């Protein structure tokens, strides 16, 4: 029996909302209504479940990482989103939103991308469903994530380089929103993280919560118990909120790891929750990096996916309420953890979750029980950049 359609959450405490040009208000209403219906529609959910299982390869394994566990002194499980089709959790959201776009009768899809993982995931979902696809990407990111640019083009997407500002994720999101302001009648914007105006933060959370739902039941099966800590990296916050949501009502510590870049004191970082202000970016009221006049600051991180001066509004609320804790890890520590995981587990992680690994290595759990860490993606895309940086560090 189908559940009752309920409104999609627009606010998280004081955070969230819709700070967008009036032109977008009606399409956001339309999207909100469409998601409210689709998420309780048996046919839609059936098709989404089938795609996640047979196309994406879900459930992804919960890997008992033995050598990593030995190293930190407490059992650690890795939720293997790197094994999902296209190599990151981004595909969960992209497939869901592309399906929703089709349901809404939109033939064209746009997306922004930083690391390129969300762009590849969206290009993939569009190829699968026969949708036209354009992906906005800062030209600094097209340089450092070259393999993903080639992949998107091969999949039939148009990659639009964005030259504004620092030429990274923030400007790519802005460019996608400007496209959408003019094209929303025929185009769906597949935002890549739990950010943006309502209903996006809730929509992306709903599509990513499969990570935590699976991990929770896999953990109960393996251990007969809940984890002590659940750890995930936070860029815009989609893999983290997708992991945390299943555990919100459990006695489990939730830890989000942001990018400290060159150090929180250097001013060159991506830690909007740990070291930012409150304000509006890309349509939502949340934690942001901004100066005292409200000008948005450039973020900095070695990992393109964390190189963003904002974060999803639900995380700002979880921070304020104390339900989740947010910490930050530097470029250097993340790079070392990147190599460490390769050698301990034979897994090449993306630089984004390498931040979470680094935090775990520095903060091993005490006592019995076990931890879960979401390994949000694989590191093939990062090899050139990471190896060059590690060479520099090794001297």
């Amino acid at each position, binding site marked *: 029996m189908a559940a009752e359609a309920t409104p999609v959450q627009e606010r998280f405490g004081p955070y969230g*909302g819709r*700070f967008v040009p009036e*032109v977008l208000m009606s399409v956001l209403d339309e999207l909100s209504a469409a998601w409210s219906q689709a998420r309780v529609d048996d046919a839609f959910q059936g098709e989404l479940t089938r795609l996640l299982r047979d196309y994406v390869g879900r459930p992804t394994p919960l890997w008992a990482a033995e050598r990593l566990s030995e190293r930190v002194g407490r059992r650690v499980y890795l939720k293997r989103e790197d094994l999902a089709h296209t190599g990151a959790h981004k595909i969960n959201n992209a497939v869901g939103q592309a399906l929703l776009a089709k349901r809404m009768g939109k033939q064209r899809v746009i997306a922004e991308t930083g690391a390129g993982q969300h762009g590849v995931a969206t290009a993939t979902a569009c190829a699968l469903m026969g949708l036209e696809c354009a992906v906005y990407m800062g030209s600094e990111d097209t340089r450092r994530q070259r393999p993903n640019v080639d992949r998107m083009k091969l999949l039939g997407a148009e990659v639009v380089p964005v030259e504004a500002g620092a030429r990274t994720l*923030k400007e790519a999101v802005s460019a996608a929103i400007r496209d959408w302001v*003019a094209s929303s009648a025929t185009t769906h914007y597949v935002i890549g993280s739990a950010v943006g105006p309502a209903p996006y933060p809730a929509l992306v959370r709903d599509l990513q919560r499969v990570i935590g739902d699976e991990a929770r039941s896999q953990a109960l099966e393996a251990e007969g118990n809940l984890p002590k800590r659940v750890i995930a990296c936070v860029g815009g916050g989609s893999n983290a909120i997708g992991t945390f949501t299943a555990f919100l009502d459990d006695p489990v510590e939730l830890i989000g790891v942001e990018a400290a870049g060159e150090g929180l004191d250097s001013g060159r970082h991506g830690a909007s929750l740990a070291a930012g202000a409150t304000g509006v970016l*890309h349509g939502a009221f949340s934690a*942001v990096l901004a100066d005292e006049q409200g000008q948005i600051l450039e973020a900095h991180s070695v990992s393109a996916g964390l190189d963003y001066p904002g974060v999803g509004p639900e995380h700002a609320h979880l921070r304020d309420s104390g339900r989740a804790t947010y910490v930050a890890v530097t470029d250097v520590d993340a790079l070392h953890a990147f190599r460490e995981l390769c050698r301990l587990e034979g897994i090449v992680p993306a630089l984004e979750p390498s931040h979470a690994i680094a935090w775990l290595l520095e903060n091993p759990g005490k006592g019995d029980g076990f931890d879960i860490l979401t390994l949000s993606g694989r590191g093939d895309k990062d090899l050139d950049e990471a190896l060059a940086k590690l060479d520099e560090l090794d001297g």
Partner: protein
Amino acid sequence: MADQEAATAAATGEQRILDAFAAARAQGRAALMPYMMGGFPDQATATVIARAYSESGADLIELGVPYSDPLADGPVIHAAGTTALAAGATLESALETCAAVSGDVPVVLMAYANMLLAVGPERFASDAAAAGAAGVIVPDLPIDEAGEIGEALIGAGLALVPLLAPSTPPERRAEICSRGQGFVYVVSTAGTTGERDELPGGLAELVRAAQGDAAVPVAVGFGIGTPEQAASVGEVADGVIIGSRLVRAVSDAPDAEAAAAAVSEFLRATGDALKG
């Protein structure tokens, strides 16, 4: 004369805006409201441009406060804001330009929500009022989010000018219009700011519908780049806003004098076209 000056000083921002529209209407034409970017390309030139606007037929001036992430703006205005910020523009410097002309012509500021929230809506409003601003347009603040910001502006005697888009459904349009202060800003097309070869077909109907809903004048902006387009919009709308075309003229000019001459020439031609 002295009485009149005292009356001007005492009038609320909204009243000064309404008076400017009424004066244009009395001459049988739409009001001309050129947009400029504060601090662009530098502070001294920006103030020269504001004076040129005021002396070349502007009934009101829309003054953009440069912002790092202007989601409603197209490439020309976005780039101008970036240049202005790089040249050191701030809210204070934009307000200095406002103060330089606000005694001659009502100035409506255009500022993004985060700028008001960062300095605090009350402080923003009192600083703007002290600089003589008459109203504020916040392009990423739909009526649903206006709460605290709206109250602060009204409290300081400033009008919060709402925007209306072609995609706004009729019920919501009526709601927006009923809250309109000073004027209602109709965005001509679904898109960001920028010149357009053609304005959309349904614009006249949209403007008439808004006029039916609103107790205040209705002005049209986004996409108007020639005197002819201004004249055709001015046949229905109570006011015409011209942005990117003028900002482009300032970008293209070699110096402040040339920039002032270029915008003055364009505004005079547009003023003539509006008189019909």
